[in-house]
Structures are given as C-alpha cells and as structure tokens.
C-alpha cells in the first residue's frame, strides 16, 4: 500500500483551512513534508493490509474498577490510515479505553480487534505491528535518550542504526546523551513517541501526547504526528485540547463517563450542532460542570 492512501469515508479537513494558524510557529523548526511524503521511517511499507477490514474494530468494551464504570460499552471503528481522536474531560475513560484496545488490560466485556486480530489475550505477533505511547512516559531508569531508544529497538529486534535515525527524526540527536529525567517535557514526549515508533508500527496509539507542553513544543509535536500519519500509519490519540483534535484528527469520538457520545469529523460535528468550533460541540455534549 502506498504511504499516502490515507483518506477515509469521513474525509480529511482541508489542510490549508485548519493548519493556517500554526504556520508562524512552525517556522522555528524545519517544516516536515506536507501531503505526499516519502517514507522516512526506514523500512517502508510492504505489509499485507486487507483493506476491507478496519484497522481497529472495537465492540461493546466495558471495564469497571470497583463501583466506577471506567468504560461502559464503547464501540467504534477506525479505518486504515485514519487519524482518530478520542476527546473527553478528565476521568471520561479515555486512557482505560485505549488500554483495553491496546490489550494492556483485559476487558470485562466486549472485544477489540486490531488489524483483524483480537488484542486480548496478548499476542506478540500483533504487538510487533502496533506502537504505544503511554500517558506517563515509560522510561528505563537513569538511561540516556539514546540508551532508551536502543533498548526499545532491541526489544523489537530493530537495529541501533534505525534507533539513531528515529532519534534524528524527532530532533533529539543533540540530546542523545541526556538522561530521561533531565529532558524537558516536550523532549521527553518526543523521545516517548520515538520509542513507540522505532519498530515502524502500522498502528500508533498516543495517550495525551501534548498535555503539559508549551505552545511551541505542542505545535512541533503536531507536525511530527501529521508526518507519522502522512506515511500511512493509523493514529489514535486522546486529548482534551479541542484545537488539537480539530487540526489533527480526521474523525473524533467525544467521550464522557465511560461512553462515546458522538463520533464524526470535527467539521461535521460543528455543522450538525450549529456551533462555532469543536470546543462548543464538546461543551454542549459534556456539560459545563467541573471534572476532577
């Protein structure tokens, strides 16, 4: 499959319209290729993908923690090459949903199939094809950025050279000798994403990758994420930044109290509810009371 075959039923928002405002800040960093881009992530894309099955098919997922219904009957599908966002206030169940989909936790009910395979029980063959960035960066203790990514590369049987390339891709070559606890928030997130991508996964999960970053770092990260998606990878991201979802995502699922309230392209949702932007959509669907 070609790296750019990424459109989906819902359609991608016009790049010019949504990406305009970030242009000025993007100038600080070498602009990644927009639109058609050669696969810069090493091995290229030769895997057999059956186009008629969705990349992710989730059905009736439920998970309770004691009395808390963290995920309460979630069903959705993500197409190959799609950039899919899960939006919701704190405690909505985004992380738990992602963890169930990734196969990190066993669902109480329901199932998740990734690339046609069930994600639970654990299947190392499937794990090779997915890349995960956990909500809190998971780094080995007291290792430098380069040692971290080399370790992850080895876990996936990937060469050290490729790991160094990945470090370069996320712009951390200069920080290669820095220990994880000395990296800034943005650098740590980029390293974490690099570790998630080092084995060239088809499916990428990112849990709040931009939370806690300053505007510059956020926008740099957006470029990186768009680039990843432009190479044909399916990307699922959770966020509670609405501007981010509006700019990055082909489709978003709005979640609250363990349930998905609405799914659609940001522009469709805005039109449907007759409001000004995704933030208004969000507030209209989830209410305005304080969370956590």
């Amino acid at each position, binding site marked *: 499959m070609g790296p750019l075959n990424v459109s989906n039923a819902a359609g991608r928002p016009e790049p010019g319209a949504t990406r305009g405002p970030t242009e000025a800040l993007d100038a600080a960093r070498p602009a990644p290729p927009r639109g058609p881009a050669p696969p810069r992530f090493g091995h290229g894309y030769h895997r057999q993908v059956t186009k008629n099955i969705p990349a992710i098919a989730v059905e009736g997922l439920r998970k309770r923690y004691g009395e808390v219904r963290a995920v309460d009957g979630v069903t959705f599908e993500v197409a190959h090459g799609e950039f899919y966002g899960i939006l919701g206030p704190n405690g909505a169940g985004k992380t738990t949903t992602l963890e169930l989909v990734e196969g990190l936790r066993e669902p109480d009910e329901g199932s998740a199939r990734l690339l046609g395979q069930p994600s639970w029980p654990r299947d190392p*063959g499937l794990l090779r094809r997915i890349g995960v960035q956990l909500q809190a960066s998971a780094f080995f203790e007291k290792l430098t950025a380069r040692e971290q990514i080399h370790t992850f590369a*080895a876990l996936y049987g990937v060469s050290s050279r490729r790991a160094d390339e990945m470090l370069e891709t996320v712009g951390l070559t200069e920080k290669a000798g820095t220990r994880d606890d000395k990296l800034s928030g943005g650098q740590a997130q980029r390293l974490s994403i690099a570790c998630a991508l080092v084995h060239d996964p088809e499916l990428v999960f990112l849990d709040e990758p931009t939370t806690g970053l300053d505007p510059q770092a956020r926008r740099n990260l957006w470029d990186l994420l768009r680039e990843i998606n432009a190479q044909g990878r399916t990307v699922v991201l959770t966020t509670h930044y609405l501007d981010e979802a509006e700019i990055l995502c082909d489709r978003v699922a709005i979640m609250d109290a363990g349930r998905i309230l609405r799914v659609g392209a940001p522009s469709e949702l805005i039109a449907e509810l007759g409001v000004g932007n995704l933030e208004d959509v969000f507030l209209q669907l989830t209410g305005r009371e304080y969370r956590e």
Partner: protein
Amino acid sequence: MSAFRSLSLAMLKGLLRDRTASFFTLVFPLMFLLLFGALFQNDSVSRSHVLQFGEVAVLDEMPADQRRDLSEALNVEQVRDRDEALARVSDGDADAVVWQDEDGRIELRYSAADATRAGTVQGLMQSLVQSANLAETGQPPAFELASDQVEDKSIKPIQYLAPGLLGWAIAMGASFMSAFTLVNWRKKRILRRLWLAPISPGTVIGARIGVSLGMAFLQTALFLGVATIPFYGLRLTGFWWLAIPLVACGTLAFMSVGLVIGAWAKTDEAANAALQLVIMPMAFLSGSFFPLDSSPDWVRAISNAMPLKHLNEAVQGVLTRGEGWGAALPAMGGLLLFAAVLTAVAARLFRWDDT
C-alpha cells in the same frame, strides 16, 4: 543486540548509576570486610587469655617448641596480685587465673559467664597437666586420645567474617535491587510498556535474575580475592567452589524477599525501610557479623529459621572447614524452597500499577 542482552544492560546501568544503592549494596559490605578483617586480624577466637600467678611448673618448664605451639591457643600473662587477677577474670577481662599450691596442686579459676571459653581453658590446662604427669612417669602413654578441632587450629576471624559478610552482601544486593526494580518499574510504567513489547515474560525475568547473579558472583570474587590476600590470610579448603552454587541459590532466595517487599511497597522509601528492617536483624541473627555459638538458646532457635544463617554456615563450611556437598546441598535445597515460597507470595501481592 538481543532483547535479553539489551534488557540486562539497561537494568545493570540503571542499578550501577544509582550511586547510593550501588554504594550500599556493593561497596559497603566490602568495606566492612576490609575493616573488620583488619581490626580482628590478630585476634584468634580460640586464643585464651590466662593470668599466671607465681610459679606454675607445667607452664614454666615447657620446652620452647611446645610453648610456641601453645601460644597459638593460649596467651599467658604473669601477674603479681592474685585477688586483682581474680577480679579481672570475673570482669571478663581475662579468661582464667592459674597458680600452684605449695603441695604442687595446680589451681585454675575461670568464669562461668563464657562456657565455651571456660571449657577451652580447662581442657588445655588438663591436657598440660596430664602430659606433664606422663612425662614424670617416664613411660610412653598407654592411651592416647587424638582429638583435634574441625577448623584449622588457629581459627582466624577472617574465616567466619568472609563467609558471614559475603552472605550479608548477597542478601542486601539481591533483595534491595529486586525490590527497587519492581517498585521503580511499576512507578515508571516500564512493566506496562514491556507488556506491550513482543517479548516473553521469561526474557524479562531471566534478564533480571541474570543481572543479580552476575552482581553476586562479582561480589563473591571480590570478597574471596580480598580475604585470601596474605594480610587477611583466608585459607580456602577443597570444595570452596561450592560457594558459587550456594551464592546463586542465596541470590534467588533474597531476590524473592525483595520481590515480596517490592510488590507490597508503593515507594522506594517504603521499600528501603522495610528491607532495612528485615535484612539488618536477619544479618545479626544469622551470625554475619559475629558468631552466635555462645548466644542463648532462644536466639539460636530464631537464628535457625533465618535463610541467611544456613547460607552463611554452608558457605563457611565449604570455604574454610573442608566440607563438601553434604553441607552445600541441604542449604541449597532450603534456599530454593524458600525462594519458591516467597516468589509465590510476591506473585499474589503483585500489582501492575500503583493505583
């Protein structure tokens, strides 16, 4: 690089770069050995301190070579005041007072406070008197009891210090490092992240055990290297290499202690406190720092329940007492059983996350 090797390397670097942890688990015990070994260097445990008042024929008329032999076991000091000498014995400052009556009877006074020591002195004096009696008759002895201590005659403190401190070092290293790995990997979500990597749990566990075994063998090599230099003078006996499988089993046993504490503790600090509370008293009760031969029965009963005591004893047996498989196998079996039970407990307590 293979997943196993790179994981091992990542763990090893993480442990060695934690300065405090590596100091206390690796350097600290070795410093104890260097220090204790030097402090007690001339202090043979079987050397008794006897005060001699006035003339005592069996001691004074001893041939020079016999006197030299005796001096390895007995340190004789001449005193002028018998009452003062008796006071020193009851204070524990000396082990016994000896003098001779006008009618030739040899009087020995010792303190009952240290039964072992009293027995030693008594036995020594008895044999001196008997051999003097025999020599007086001019006949060769009709019966001879050839008895000897199991240990090297002049047992030096290094011979129990080296195995005891090594046992303590192994216990600290294995338990602290496995507890810290578990707590930190849970806290930093590395455990979760590894679950999502296409590697088997066996690889992760194997790498972790491999790192601990490697560290334990390194410690053993350093300890034996230091203890056998002439200054410390440890003499290894035939089956000393059995210490290697013993150390391996001990490492597994104390890793399992670390796993239980690591599974229970939420933070490094809690794990550290719990480990200190477990390991230090256990080391004392296992004779890591001083022998417990003369301690009360109840102490020895508790001591017998300590895995470290059996490790220490078996390691001392094979290193310095010429013991072999007979001493090593039961200890190894017991340590492995202990490891299996505690690992099962740790598995019950195990959590993936702190929440």
